[in-house]
């Protein structure tokens, strides 16, 4: 750089000092480089524009000759024009202009020539230099116009056959004479365009419903169990009602809210409540509104929608627009985010279906452990989470999303033809737009299917998660729905119900209550009981059993298997309670014990993971314990799950003998795991880790055996209850273990020593029958006072 600066021909090169500016010598044509001695080259258009103008004028004359005489050819017309006075003037001008341009070109290339001319005109230059540049420009402009108009009028005169002055005045008259034809053309064009316009207008209708303040009856009180979100949304409403409060302090009213969360959590209801509370019009945008047959209709729809919104906003002082299932708007990217995946894990339904992979599903482990296993399964099956609109294809497509983004951020720009074009033409500033108070609300259960640009502040300012309702919310929801039917359920029972249904939403609670009513009606009653609700809940959550009857020997081993799970879970797990235990077959699932978390937890302790694993190991430990070291294939799934959990805990959470921990990506790269998530199949089979995992499993297994040995009576009791009733609620399991009265089963009999002895005897015979296949298994002993022969009513 320094070399460059000193190597130039002149002393100081580089940028001129700021104050000096370019030096313009009157003897130099070039402003940008005074050292050049030639003229600054003209750009092509400047060089030819006058010639083009003259040639066009000559051709207009030729055209006039041609069109007025059918006998004439082009060259004849050309020659004829050249014979006329005007034609000769124009030709002369062409030649003069050509000479001028040749002169310029010489001046551009030959320095002495240019300098000679500059010296010749130095005096003239000095004279004209006395006038300001602006004056010279204006004079030159007037002269150019006069010359141009003269030539045009002369050409017109030749066409019309009148004098040049008259010809100029004749042009408007001629134009008016042509108006009917021009109008006709305009009408044809209009019809052609209007056809398309009309089709698109027609297609762009629909999908948008407007509700006026009186139409919406929903209030915030109707949204149960979402107090936090309601509170925040209420805040937005305050600003919407009284925008000056924030605007006067230099802020702005938040313009957009995204509600996201699992289905059925009341997102739409909340948006309706907002409309009902504010007394502003409520515009509901149908999720399908932007799926269109033709490209561009979606864009028109968005534009039409926002035109309507602005109108309503001005008329009513604000408007709320609600995009339901906003994921239909699509995304231009469409990547699966980890957040989305985790969110999916948090939902019960999608992976509940996957639970069939193991004997007992994974119901008896904590939510956290369930997530690991579900993730493993998802990756294992190459089941990737659908992203909603990917590449814009799923959404409105072809610019609909972009149009929406533009409209959302374009609310602050001046609008309207008169405002922007006419006012500007008249030299006036466009009026700033009025403050459109549009509250955009969107709801989705697939938040990552939304385009990130949509969620940026200024478009969607606030993002609220509508999670599963809180326990209080569930209590209110149960109460409200139960109040709509006749029921015999106490407040304590409602509280219990709310506790054992942590992932219930308004929609599922409503459905459960209705299902319970169906059960009650089927039983010939008109009031819903607690037991109906429990049954309905079980039916909804676990589905309908197949009605398959196991052979006696299999029924007993299966009952032992599930009883061991249940007893270990009951004794050791403190973060959840048993929801249901069953040996009724549902599809691939022979039986299961389903837990319910008592509270929503964020992290899990190592001791709790140990309990999770022990719950899995209970089946193997129990079968071996009760069948003299023998066990069924049914424990395979449980053992795989146990291994998976331990592996994950060791490799990712430093819960093993080492301090190392890896995340999914590291594991994938290390080759220890595949697919980015720890897989049961990816467990190292050999080496230090494998040995440590085996040791841990062994240790937990031994502890499980101890627990089961200490609870032999309880296992046999639950086994009997399962064999007798096939399905037990969590409270019944507790009643059987504790020897109390449950809602359906009276467990007091299981404390009687005689009865327990008969159960031991029955089990011994069953094991004997198992060892000698042809021997008939014993029949199930019954209690002298039949256990829960008649259903104990809840009231």
């Amino acid at each position: 750089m320094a070399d460059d600066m000193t190597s130039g021909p002149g002393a100081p090169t580089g940028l001129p000092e700021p104050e000096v500016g370019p030096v313009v010598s009157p003897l130099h044509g070039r402003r940008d480089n005074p050292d050049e001695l030639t003229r600054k080259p003209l750009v092509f258009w400047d060089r030819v524009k006058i010639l083009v103008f003259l040639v066009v004028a000559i051709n207009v004359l030729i055209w006039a000759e041609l069109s007025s005489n059918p006998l004439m050819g082009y060259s004849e017309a050309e020659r004829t024009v050249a014979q006329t006075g005007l034609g000769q003037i124009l030709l002369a001008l062409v030649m003069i202009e050509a000479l001028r341009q040749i002169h310029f070109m010489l001046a551009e290339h030959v320095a002495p020539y240019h300098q000679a001319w500059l010296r010749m005109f130095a005096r003239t230059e000095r004279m004209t230099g006395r006038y300001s540049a602006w004056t010279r420009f204006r004079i030159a402009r007037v002269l150019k116009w006069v010359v141009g108009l003269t030539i045009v009028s002369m050409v017109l005169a030749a066409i019309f056959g009148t004098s040049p002055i008259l010809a100029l005045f004749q042009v408007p008259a001629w134009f008016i004479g042509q108006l009917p034809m021009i109008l006709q053309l305009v009408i044809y064009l209009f019809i052609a365009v209007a056809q398309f316009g009309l089709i698109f207008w027609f297609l762009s209708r629909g999908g948008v419903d407007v509700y006026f303040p009186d139409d919406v009856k929903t209030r915030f009180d109707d949204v149960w169990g979402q107090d936090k979100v309601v509170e925040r949304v209420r805040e937005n409403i305050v600003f919407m009602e009284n925008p000056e409060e924030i605007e006067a302090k230099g802020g702005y009213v938040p313009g957009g809210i995204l509600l996201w969360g699992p289905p059925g959590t009341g997102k739409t209801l909340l948006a309706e409540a907002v409309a009902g509370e504010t007394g502003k019009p409520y515009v509901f945008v149908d999720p399908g509104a932007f799926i269109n047959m033709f490209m561009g209709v979606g864009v028109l729809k968005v534009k039409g929608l926002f035109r309507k919104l602005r109108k309503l906003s001005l008329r009513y002082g604000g408007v709320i627009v609600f995009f339901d299932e906003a994921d239909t708007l699509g995304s231009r990217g469409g990547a699966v985010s980890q957040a989305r995946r985790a969110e999916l894990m948090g939902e019960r339904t999608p992976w509940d279906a996957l639970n069939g992979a193991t004997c007992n599903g994974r119901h008896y482990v904590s939510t956290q452990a369930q997530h690991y296993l579900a993730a493993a399964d998802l990756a294992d099956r190459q089941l990737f989470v659908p992203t909603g609109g990917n590449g814009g294809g799923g959404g409105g497509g072809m610019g609909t999303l972009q149009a929406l983004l533009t409209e959302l951020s374009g609310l602050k720009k001046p609008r309207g033809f008169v405002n922007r074009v006419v006012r500007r033409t008249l030299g006036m500033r466009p009026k700033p737009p009025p403050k459109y108070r549009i509250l955009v609300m969107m709801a989705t259960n697939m938040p990552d299917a939304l385009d990130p640009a949509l969620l940026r502040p200024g478009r969607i300012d606030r993002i609220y998660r509508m999670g599963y309702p809180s326990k209080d919310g569930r209590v209110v929801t149960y109460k409200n729905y139960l109040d709509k039917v006749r029921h015999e359920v106490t407040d304590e029972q409602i509280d219990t119900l709310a506790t054992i249904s942590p992932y219930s939403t308004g929609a599922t609670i409503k459905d459960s209550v209705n299902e319970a009513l169906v059960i009650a009606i089927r039983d010939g009653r008109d009031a819903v009981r607690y037991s109906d609700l429990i049954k309905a809940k079980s039916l909804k959550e676990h589905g309908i059993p197949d009605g398959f009857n196991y052979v006696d020997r299999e029924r007993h081993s299966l009952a032992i298997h599930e009883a061991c799970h249940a007893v270990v879970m009951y004794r050791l797990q403190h973060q959840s309670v048993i929801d249901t235990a069953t040996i009724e077959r549902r599809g691939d699932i022979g039986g299961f014990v389903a837990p319910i978390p008592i509270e929503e937890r964020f992290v899990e302790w190592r001791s709790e993971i140990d309990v999770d694993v022990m719950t899995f190991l209970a089946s193997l430990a129990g079968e071996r314990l009760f069948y003299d070291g023998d066990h069924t294939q049914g424990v395979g799934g449980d053992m795989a799950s146990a291994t998976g959990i331990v592996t994950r805990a060791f490799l990712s959470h430093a819960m093993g003998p080492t301090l190392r921990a890896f995340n999914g990506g590291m594991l994938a790269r290390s080759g220890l795991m595949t697919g980015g998530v720890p897989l049961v199949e990816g467990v190292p089979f050999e080496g230090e880790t494998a040995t440590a995992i085996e040791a841990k499993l062994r240790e937990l297994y031994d502890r499980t055996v101890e627990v089961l040995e200490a609870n032999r009576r309880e296992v046999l009791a639950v086994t009997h209850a399962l064999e007798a009733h096939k399905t037990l609620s969590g409270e019944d399991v507790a009643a059987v273990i504790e020897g109390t009265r449950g809602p359906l089963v009276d467990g007091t009999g299981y404390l009687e020593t005689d009865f327990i002895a008969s159960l031991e005897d029955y089990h011994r015979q069953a094991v004997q029958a198992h060892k000698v296949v042809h021997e008939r298994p014993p029949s199930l002993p019954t209690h002298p006072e039949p256990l829960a022969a008649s259903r104990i009513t809840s009231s």
Partner: protein
Amino acid sequence: MSRSRRPLVALVGAALGAALVSGCAAPVFRYATEKPAGALAGTVYFKVPYTWTAFPTGSITTAQQPWATAGDPQLLLQATSWQEAYDSAPQPSLSHVFGRTAPDQPVVYASLRSLYTEEQPGATAAGLRDLLVPVSTLGKAVRVTTDDILSQGRVDGVHVVFSYTSAPGQPEETIDQTAYLSDGTDAVYLLVVRCTTACYTAHRAEIDSVTSSYTIQEDRSG
């Protein structure tokens, strides 16, 4: 100037040059048009070789003064809205066009004359044959060499070429007459080329080019 524009400049220059050169040459024909002032198109068109001399309209009227002061000729000229005359002689004169003696170089006269109301019922295209000389009644005094019925659009007319001797001792004269009756039978379009028969034979090609270019476009004047 960038290198890529050089061909364009050359092209524009060449086109301009060609246009200038061809524009400097004289036209091959003179074009006659019956065109009312202010109209963009006329009704009658024909062309004559460019070397022929056109007479200004005023001088034609002046030349007609001696014999058109009264009577039928005056009425006739009053009804004539347009007339043009051309002479191919090196010393052009309107006496060649209107004189009794046959000119020895071709002359052209063209006119558009309205028909008076009383003339209109009897006017037919065939009757135009006798417009200048009563060809059909003179019998052998006139030698008719061409007698064609013509039609341009809805305008009908005749093309007659005949030769006769106007007075003993005079050279035989040939008159090439094309006349059309307007669609509304209210106007007559006339084109006459005259000269001696020897001259006519000698200049046949030129004369034919004039008569064949005679074009009536009534609709366009609309």
